[in-house]
């Protein structure tokens, strides 16, 4: 089972979901409070890398989620590997775009 790309897309979807759920309270707290102060601390390379990682996790979770919706609501079955590849491509694309923008 672990050889199939669908297993890895499932795993990335789950782990990115947990990471996003953990990140959100921190994100909201920072937005509410740091907006009155300085955001200079976000210029640190490690923070920037963390931001990049969480944005890629968001894109990966979106890709994985769209795949789940397609599997459950559309009648395809033989497209599973293509959907997994599309989910991965979305995450890589967003990751590259953000890396260029940062």
């Amino acid at each position, binding site marked *: 089972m672990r050889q199939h790309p669908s297993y890895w897309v499932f795993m990335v979807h*789950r782990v990115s*979901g*947990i990471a*996003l*759920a953990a990140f*959100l*309270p921190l*994100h*909201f*707290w920072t*937005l*509410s409070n*740091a*907006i*009155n*102060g*300085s*955001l200079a601390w*976000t*210029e640190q390379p490690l923070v920037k890398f963390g931001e990049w990682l969480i*944005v890629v996790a*968001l*894109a990966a*979770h*979106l890709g994985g*989620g*769209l795949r*789940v*919706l397609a599997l*459950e*609501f559309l009648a395809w079955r033989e497209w599973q590997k293509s959907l997994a590849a599309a989910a991965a491509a979305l995450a890589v694309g*967003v990751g590259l*775009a*953000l890396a260029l*923008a*940062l």
Partner: protein
Amino acid sequence: MSFRTQAVLWVAQRASAAVLAVCVVVHLVTIIYAVQGGLTASEILARTRGNTAWLAFYSVFVLAVSIHAPIGLRSVCIEWLRWRGASRDLVLLVFSAILAWAGMRAVLALFA
């Protein structure tokens, strides 16, 4: 938990996912656009403050995520932690309330 409640949670998870799919695409585009040239508090506020369209958009985003994240974590609790019973759902309900409260607080701080 009754079959009916489970069905409601399943529908809520998919419905919130559909809303979030749109929100996340908009959010990702905004992030990539906004981070160019670095972020400062004053630059962010100049873009956000008093903008009711974005206020409405991010309010929907926050409320959808307050539904979506706890239901997703519920599956993780059941399958990976084998955590069953009322305590699990109570903790997830509190988590949902924290997300909604903290999220709306952030939205109002930025956009109101």
